């Protein structure tokens, strides 16, 4: 097994009249036990230059990232980190992140996200850039 941790800090000194500071560290484990995840895609960088929808992570059994499965064949546990490395610019350019056809949200230049991933056929993680300006993304999956 390996030990992989993900730490988040959310902080603001002025969104309320008192400071907000939330910090949590998760140790990434296999589904339902304390064994650390042992697989990763490694960090990957892609540049997109059209507004076409693309499959960033293909979770299907026939290609792409196939998440670890338990003995019964059920999808277990994956974690995805994705960031938009572009400058924010005027704040009008982004990539829309989707689970197949369902929009999760928009990643503007400089934004990042970290989410568990159910995976499985029909749960590809997809992105759609808002412009033809080169958009550079980095992602890594632990599973």
């Amino acid at each position, binding site marked *: 097994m390996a030990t992989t941790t993900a730490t*988040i800090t959310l902080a603001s000194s002025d969104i309320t009249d008192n400071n907000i500071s939330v910090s949590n560290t998760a140790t990434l484990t296999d*589904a339902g036990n304390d064994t650390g995840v042992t697989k*990763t895609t490694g960090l990957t960088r892609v540049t997109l230059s059209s507004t076409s929808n693309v499959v960033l992570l293909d979770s299907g059994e026939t290609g792409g990232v196939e998440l670890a499965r338990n003995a019964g064949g059920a999808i277990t546990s994956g974690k995805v980190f994705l960031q938009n490395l572009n400058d924010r610019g*005027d*704040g009008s350019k982004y990539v829309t992140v989707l689970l197949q056809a369902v929009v999760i949200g928009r990643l503007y230049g400089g934004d990042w996200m*970290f989410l568990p991933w159910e995976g499985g056929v029909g749960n590809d993680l997809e992105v759609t850039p808002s412009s033809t300006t080169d958009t550079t993304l980095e992602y890594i999956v632990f599973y």
Partner: protein
Amino acid sequence: MATTTASITLSSQDILSNAISISSSSTLYHDNTTATGLTQFKSGRVNVYVTGGSFDLIPALASEEASSTNSYVYICNKDTTATNYVTISIYNEVIGKLYAGDWMFIPWEQNDPVGDNGSDNDIEVEAFVGGPQTIEWMVFTESTATILDASGD
């Protein structure tokens, strides 16, 4: 405006033959601005029980007029039993499972896409084992109208 930052560090000494250390930090801004911070947020801490059904953890805006184009959501499962988990969904699309101690941070399309006070973009939670599991959440957002649900009475 306000300044709210979200930072992440991913690290492992042994998942590969060389150490991994990835860090990123972003400031949560309004859509179409260069540096205007989000000014609204909601948060909560709830216990989720196994009932055979899912619950709205963070409802989408009630109307498309209350336009929000840029929101961010943080959710953490504070449970400590490794076998326990909840699923997090956007409406009926399962994003994934948050096991005990896991957290997630995502951008979120908070609008109700058809403005029918429906549940299309609700963020939902469901527990399948153990419990009750304690879930903490925060949402940072902008909008052109209130982000509160109508009282309906």
